[in-house]
């Protein structure tokens, strides 16, 4: 009999000073509740986080590496898309 493996989950942690949850890694767990517990034990042992998200890895749709060219290359020569051509009036101050 083959050993049944728990499904894989992706773990996101919001840190002490961060506003966003950041991807920190993955782990195995039979369901969401245990995935949260495991994430607590595996990824927040050194007080890294204040909030945890877990997402089944199977639910993530990723872009295909072979389409990299079509997806990302066209943005390369379009410097005008960066907001670097505006003069910011002095009164605005530091942005």
């Amino acid at each position: 009999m083959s050993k049944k493996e728990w499904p894989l989950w992706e773990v996101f942690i919001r840190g002490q000073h961060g506003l966003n949850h950041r991807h920190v890694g993955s782990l195995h767990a039979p369901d969401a509740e245990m995935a949260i517990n495991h994430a607590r034990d595996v990824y927040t042992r050194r007080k890294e986080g204040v909030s945890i998200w877990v997402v089944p890895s199977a639910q993530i749709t990723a872009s295909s590496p072979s389409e990299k060219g079509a997806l990302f290359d066209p943005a390369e020569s379009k410097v005008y898309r960066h907001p670097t051509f505006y003069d910011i009036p002095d009164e605005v101050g530091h942005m």
Partner: protein
Amino acid sequence: MVALDLDRQTLFDWLLRLGDNALILGHRTSEWCGHGPALEEDIALANTALDLIGHCQMWYTLAAEVEGKGRTADNLAYLRDAIQFKNVKLVELPNGDIGQTMMREFLFNAFHFELLTALTGSTDPKVSEIAAKAVKEVAYQLDRASDLVVRLGDGTEESHRRMQAALDYLWPYVGEMFLADATDDALAEAGIAPRLTDIQTKWEAIVSDTLDEATLTRPDRRPDVHTGGKQGRHTEHLGYILAEMQFLQRAYPGAEW
């Protein structure tokens, strides 16, 4: 302040019970390190062990201070023999399979959690401070253990059978946790510790809810068969734990990192 009519020896003995329960269960739990059924469970068990060993350090430090004979927390952990250990027998039993380990964690954690919660209101501020620090970790341990008891109890046919067997095996040891002797009575009189009968009532509620949910049957036999650990009378298992744990300090006295 500690009540004046409570002598040092009694307070010291009682603090040792808290420290010894934490150290011996911590040591048992640490035996899973590298052997857990899954990487995630392995890390969780190692965390639990470290939490408990942290608790014993706090209790021993206070105990050594109360005793006032210049002993340290390390002396208390490494240089006492089995008869001087005051933990309940439940925590020194071998781990068995993961089901038995988690059932023991659950039965002890439910007691530990209620005891520490009550101790946060102790009349002795040093006791209440340690309890407040430890109870947060034990609350998580209890959550985790009861969750696993329910999952395994109400799981497959095999996991159910193993959890029921674990419960039946451990049951005759649980009564010792609530068996008050003169030390417990003196501490309750002084307002430092709660009455163990109050803790038992709360423990019963947690245990019966969880066992129901886990579809496990409460054993129909006395829970207070194996007692005496709190007075220093232990099973043969404790000697083996101490032999392994204390070897280095016994063979190389005073060795440090």
